[in-house]
């Protein structure tokens, strides 16, 4: 409750022009925003650019935010973030980074988020797995990639995603299904998926 009140207060202050208040919000959301940006853009540099753009844009348009409840700010912010990523993708018109490149500019290794209970091997495996998945995600076309990240990385509902990307519900479902299917095929080919039989062991 307290947190929600604080966020509401911060938002109100930011809407009145307080950059300091807005920066508090930035600190609270920057990892989430950066994660989404990283999953969509594929490399840390582009992700930073996109995330920064997203926050600048959010501050400039904070006056237009009409939040009925706290979670709507997150949706509103993520919408801006995904739009910023989309624009960044179009601006650069780059092909998705290959697995090799992502090795060099690795956003996966992140000590801060490692569980203390995790064994080094598990951590390493997790890192490798994450890299493989990210590589598979980068194989997806932008529309499908964004739908997948918003749904499965961030946990938004079909309806929320539809509003965020300004697309009909059916389009969201279709893009998400195709993204998942393609990623499944990619991972299966890469040998990253465990066969049904093994899982039973």
């Amino acid at each position: 409750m307290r947190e929600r009140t604080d966020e509401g207060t911060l938002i109100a202050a930011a809407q009145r022009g307080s950059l300091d208040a807005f920066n508090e919000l930035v600190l609270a959301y920057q990892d989430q925003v950066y994660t989404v940006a990283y999953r969509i853009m594929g490399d840390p540099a582009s992700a930073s650019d996109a995330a920064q753009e997203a926050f600048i844009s959010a501050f400039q348009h904070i006056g237009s935010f009409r939040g009925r409840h706290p979670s709507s700010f997150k949706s509103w912010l993520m919408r801006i973030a995904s739009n910023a990523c989309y624009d960044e993708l179009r601006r650069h018109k780059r092909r998705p980074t290959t697995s090799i490149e992502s090795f060099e500019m690795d956003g996966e290794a992140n000590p801060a988020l490692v569980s203390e209970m995790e064994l080094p091997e598990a951590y390493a495996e997790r890192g490798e797995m994450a890299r493989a998945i990210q590589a598979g995600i980068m194989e997806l076309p932008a529309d499908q990639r964004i739908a997948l990240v918003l749904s499965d990385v961030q946990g938004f509902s079909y309806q929320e995603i539809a509003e965020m990307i300004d697309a009909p519900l059916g389009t969201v479902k279709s893009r998400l299904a195709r993204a998942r299917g393609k990623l499944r095929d990619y991972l299966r080919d890469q040998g990253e998926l465990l066969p049904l039989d093994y899982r039973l062991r």
Partner: protein
Amino acid sequence: MPLACRREQGISPTSWRLKFNTTMLRLPGRRKSKERRRDELLSAYLDGELNERGLRRLEARLADDPALRAELEALRQTVSLVRELPRVAAPRNLILTASMVEGRRGTQGSQTQAARSRSGQAPARAWAAPLLTAATAVASLLFAIVLTGDLLLGGMGGLASVPESMQEAQEIPQIALEAGRDEVGEADKDAAADEDAVADEGLLVEREVAPSPPTTGAGSAEAPPAEPEAAAEEKDAPQIESEGAVSPTSAPPALAEAPADALEMAAEEAGEAPASPVGEPVEEERAAEAVLQTETPTVPMGGGGGTEEAATIAIPEPQPTEVPVVVSGAAVTPTNALEATTEGEAWRLEAAPEEADATSAPTHADERGLARPASRNLPLRVLEGGLGLAVVALALATVQAWRMRRR
């Protein structure tokens, strides 16, 4: 299949082309759409998006189809893996500085947000379009009123005095004359420019001489004209002086009007056959002005048989000031008018009174009568022109505003 899938994922134009081609081939296309439909079904199933009927149907299919089960499991794993991806921390703090925001203030972040802002601005400017429309309407109305009034007044004056078709031509010069005359004003009479005076006198002399030969007809006509002539001459002198002074002083407006004046004078004379006893002084003044100010281009007046085909007409417009023509009845009048025009009003003035006893008088009268509305015409024309331009500009702005609004 994965390879085909990846190809399908290419850049838009490529993928479009590929999709199109595969659809045309029918074979791979059919496979893709079948797979896609299957994946959509499984995906919805995983998210609990299937209704009861769909759920039952799918579960029935799964029970009988191991391959389908495998696909579903692989899909389930994939979704789990993505969901379990670790959150990535921002490599650096992304907090904003004032410079970041100020530098970007006014610039739109992303294109979509730019579009949103634009639409936000639209309401703020919503009043612009109707306002411009109203302004255009008002300007158009004023323009119409001024134009109508001008036509009515000008038309009456011109038509009344001029028997010939020259009327229109004459109107303009008349207006100019009037305007020029007003410009110069009586006030300038005081100034005395020796040089000018001399020049003028010279002109005057010439003028005096010139009209004589062409003088026609009625001796009686000559008598009265003579008087006015004398008077004109006398007036000319001071006029010249004043004009001399005038030229330098009243420069721009006078100069501007000089040509017009000359024209008008010529027109008036010609047109005003019926003539009214226009004040000769008036004419003389105008003539003088015209002479002094118009200076420059000399337009040989074709017109009447006048010998004076006077040299200097400084009338820029080829006013059929051969209009001199007009004077009703008096053959000489045309000539005289010519003369006057060429040399300046003085000529004309003299000529006019000279020839026509009756004609000259009425001519003058007409001139005077015509002169007034005529002299009103120049500022009026300017006003009309200005209003016309304003209407056009406002109309364009209004159209633009409505277009912006629609966006």
